[in-house]
């Protein structure tokens, strides 16, 4: 698919990849390479200029506007800036996500403490976000994203604001979520994390897929440690991968 923003900026240029159900994928690349655009396309916040996004066998372009909320209820989202509500407690922040989609109170009372226990915040239910550390805030945001156990979890720079120690904990949490069968897509430029996890890596550069590697590192194995964009490898079409053999994302 291709996406051109209104100002004429080409964010994605003939990008094509498939992600199987239950996979854990890193989307890597420098700022402005199109990672966030991919995430916004998956959420149907924007429509691709060309091509299409297929999610669980459904073409997103065929989903009417009125059904977008249903789509998003099946996608959990985690962001670099947490997007917590500052005047609500941890419990209320997570419960809020359930209340706005009309979950009954009894369900909320059951699910929220469960998920907060899962992310390790069982003791901080009644704290406000500003009373928490960055890592804890990100845990709340993960709890909110995962409270309904969506089949797909998107994380846009989830460790971007955190120190390496804390980041590790967050990545372990996301990994745990992945092991429950949830497909996880993490957009990041956190070298250390990608190298440590050794999962599938899709590298984007200037809107193109330049690498798609199983159990990959942040940098291609042969690349110099010095962080330069591997520009030479992105010859027209040469490196655009078409992953075969996967069943396609089943959300």
């Amino acid at each position, binding site marked *: 698919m291709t996406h051109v923003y209104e100002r004429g900026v080409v964010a994605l240029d003939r990008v094509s990849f498939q992600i199987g159900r239950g996979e854990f994928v890193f989307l890597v690349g420098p700022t402005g390479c199109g990672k966030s655009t991919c995430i916004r396309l998956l959420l149907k916040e924007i429509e691709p200029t060309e091509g299409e996004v297929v999610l669980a066998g459904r073409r997103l372009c065929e989903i009417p506007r009125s059904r977008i909320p*249903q789509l998003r209820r*099946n996608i959990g989202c985690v962001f670099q800036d947490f*997007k917590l509500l500052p005047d609500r407690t941890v419990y209320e922040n997570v419960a*809020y996500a359930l209340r*706005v*989609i*009309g979950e009954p109170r009894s369900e909320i009372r059951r699910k929220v403490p469960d998920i907060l226990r899962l992310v390790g915040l069982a003791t901080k239910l009644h704290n406000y976000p500003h009373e928490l550390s960055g890592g804890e805030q990100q845990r709340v945001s993960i709890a909110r994203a995962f409270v309904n156990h969506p089949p797909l979890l998107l994380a846009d720079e989830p460790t971007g604001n955190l120190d390496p120690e804390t980041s590790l904990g967050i990545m372990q949490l996301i990994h745990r979520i992945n092991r429950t069968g949830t497909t996880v897509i993490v957009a990041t430029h956190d070298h250390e994390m990608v190298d440590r996890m050794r999962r599938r890596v899709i590298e984007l550069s200037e809107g193109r897929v330049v690498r798609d590697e199983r159990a990959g590192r942040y940098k291609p194995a042969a690349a110099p440690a010095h962080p330069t964009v591997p520009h030479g490898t992105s010859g027209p079409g040469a490196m655009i991968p078409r992953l075969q053999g996967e069943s396609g994302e089943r959300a």
Partner: protein
Amino acid sequence: MSFGFFLQEALRSLARTRAPALAAALTVLLTTLVLGVFIPVVQATTGTANEVRGRIVVDVYLEDGISPADREQVRRAIERIGNVKSVTYISKDEALRIAERRNPEAFREGVKLLGRNPLPASFRIVPRDPGRVVEIIDRLAPRDQRGVRRPDLPGIQEVRNREDDTERILTATSVVKAATGVLAALLAFAAVALIANTIRLSIFARRREVEVMRLVGATNWSIRWPFVIEGVIVGLVGALGAVALLYVTKQAVLDPLADRFALIAAPQTMPFPALAALLLLAAAAVSAAGSALTLRRFLRV
């Protein structure tokens, strides 16, 4: 989704945008107040004017010392006019009785004070066509060169109809209507603009919530409802204040006066509960419209 949740969100949001919400509520209060005064006043004046117009008669007042012969001559002159449906003679005594019936104390005292009956005897003419009532007057008291009416026959003191009064009431009514209408329109416009502004600020204050709601898949209407409710609350608070003020004014000022002034007690005005309901409904509708307008412009979901 529960209404309780929307209401809770709306109240939370109101608490955050207190100042603009208060300004909007006060403007609604002012608008509703003007409307609350305007509606009964127009109703009363229009009703009275119509009633007077429907009762158009010409009164031919006779001089006190008129001779029976002159009186008969006047009656015959009246009966010769084509547009006359009926002529009734009202003697001085009858005139006094009628006046007394209308306002007993004042007249009893007045007559006692004057020592005599001040009211003239008269012929009351009911025209066949109220629209051409002026013809009757012209026949009985044509205008002279200077435009002053001079009775044609001896013994006639004055010929008058109530058309003049009616026209005056109608003119006054239309002026009042126009002025209040313009004022109400301006205020309504200000009220809508201020409510819209409140909602805009509220959207801004709640942009994080809106973002989160969108991400977790809240439907468009569950995102919008709290804002609409917020607008309606602002409108209703203002309107309730206005209705309370109107009620107090009615109890304290108008009701005591209603015994004395026919216009205030005019039966054509709607009862107060109906007026209050109408005002509250209008305020709620207008504020909902103001909110919806802003949501369409600033909250593309």
